[in-house]
């Protein structure tokens, strides 16, 4: 199995959204970075499949120079090599999908096609819900989204998609595109030796020019929110009586 995982570098936002002065991005001076939680599960799943049956896991990202950090993180989980499309600008979903499809075609010419291409169901930050689907169309592949379960057997993928009240099941031939959700598995923590090994795995980086956005971000806005003034019911266990009174007022106790 040859599996490609597409990931996106995003800040770890903590409790409050603070924007840069031009309102084009989140102020990240004091923030760490990660990949979207759904994607962490995508990488873990790909690594497990290849550990069980052999093959290769490739990680692809479109992002700034610093996104190499996230590729190395994925390599520490077990990915074998990386493709880094370098751009410091934010791309819209349509342009992102176009660039990823081009990169997949180019890589396939050199090393053969991927059997499985894995995305997160939606990115943590932009939440466009479409890049994986657009890439599938560009490559003429079937796509199943929102996976909470995946079984590869006999050149087919049994996909369990989370829906209200359970899971819908799809059975599609490989090669295919899937988008996954957190909960598909519990991603491992990388070991120190695995982090060291990750440093020497091959990483192909190439700069890309961003095309014009057809969904053009103008500015970000922090929602006003309720900014509630919580009523303090008390401190310590002595507050229990007031809590139960409130529950009764709300009609839940």
């Amino acid at each position: 199995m040859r599996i490609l995982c597409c990931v996106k570098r995003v800040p770890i936002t903590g409790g409050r959204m603070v924007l840069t002065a031009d309102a084009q991005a989140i102020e990240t001076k004091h923030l760490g970075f990660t990949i979207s939680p759904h994607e962490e599960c995508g990488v873990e799943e790909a690594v497990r499949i290849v550990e069980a049956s052999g093959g290769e896991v490739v990680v692809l990202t479109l992002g700034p120079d610093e996104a190499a950090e996230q590729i190395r993180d994925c390599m520490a989980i077990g990915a074998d090599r990386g493709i880094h499309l370098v751009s410091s600008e934010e791309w819209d979903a349509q342009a992102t999908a176009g660039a990823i499809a081009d990169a997949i075609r180019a890589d396939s010419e050199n090393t053969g096609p991927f059997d499985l291409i894995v995305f997160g169901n939606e990115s943590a930050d932009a939440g466009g819900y479409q890049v994986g689907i657009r890439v599938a169309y560009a490559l003429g592949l079937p796509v199943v989204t929102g996976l909470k379960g995946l079984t590869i057997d006999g050149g087919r993928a049994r996909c369990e998609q989370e829906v209200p009240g359970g899971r819908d099941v799809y059975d599609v031939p490989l090669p295919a595109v899937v988008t996954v959700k957190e909960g598909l598995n519990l991603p491992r923590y990388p070991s120190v030796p695995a982090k060291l090994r990750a440093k020497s795995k091959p990483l192909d980086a190439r700069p890309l020019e961003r095309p014009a956005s057809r969904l053009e971000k103008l500015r970000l806005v922090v929602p006003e929110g309720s900014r509630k003034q919580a009523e303090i019911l008390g401190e310590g266990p002595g507050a229990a009586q007031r809590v139960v009174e409130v529950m009764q007022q709300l009609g839940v106790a």
Partner: protein
Amino acid sequence: MSVLVFLESADDELSSQALTLARSLGDVRAVTVEGPYAPAGWAAAIVEAAGGDDIVGPGSDRGNEVLAHVAAQLDLPFAANVSEVRGDELTRIRWGGTLLEEAKLHSDRRLVTAAPFAFAPASGGEEVTVLSPFPGNGVEVVDHVAPDTGGKVSLADAKVVVSGGRGVGSAEGFAILEELAALLDAAVGCSRVVTSAGWRPHSDQVGQTGTKVSPDLYIACGISGATQHIAGCKGAKALLAINADREATIFAHADYAVIGDLHEIVPAITAELRKVKGS
């Protein structure tokens, strides 16, 4: 301006909200699709029915998926989860609704989904045309599996959710939350820190990448209030936060606050409830 609105069903809440958005954009035709779910085939039917109209869908998983297929088939931009549309400019939600983006669509046609709970449900129905799906590309639902909930109330449907975060301290620490939940016929939830640590299964996670809940009362025990978590519980009608750190962000989202150690407070609430209920 004419608008085609895709309704997931005639009576679900998010579809009704999408209808409200669609009506604000122009003359509406409403469609739904019947048959086994096959996103590409459903999208193709909608594309044909729409002609050159704008297309609006609900901000559900399925609504976003079908509209993304529509967009890919038409090679047009698609804005998921919009909270406002002003001509060719719009506002859409990011980070599960904890941040907004103002954006401009460079397209003759608008393809959008309505962010959940950004629009009131439509008053009055609409004549709905039922479409038959086009042949898909072989990607369709072939089976359905339902989880064994063990008779417990589900997180998404519970009237009360008792939720724990890092402050609970361990998997075993959830016993006191379980006990309180049982008395309130509540579901037990947790934050992402908890599922990442393996203390609770992911199916218990409330948050941007977990379950989004809207109970009458959400009790957040030892949860700091990261945006990841707030995105999942901001739909609660009332939020009670129990936290030892009086500076915790969660208090900015809470209606009621108790300050102190949840390991003492939660059992005290349980005891008080038992006393009041006389059991």
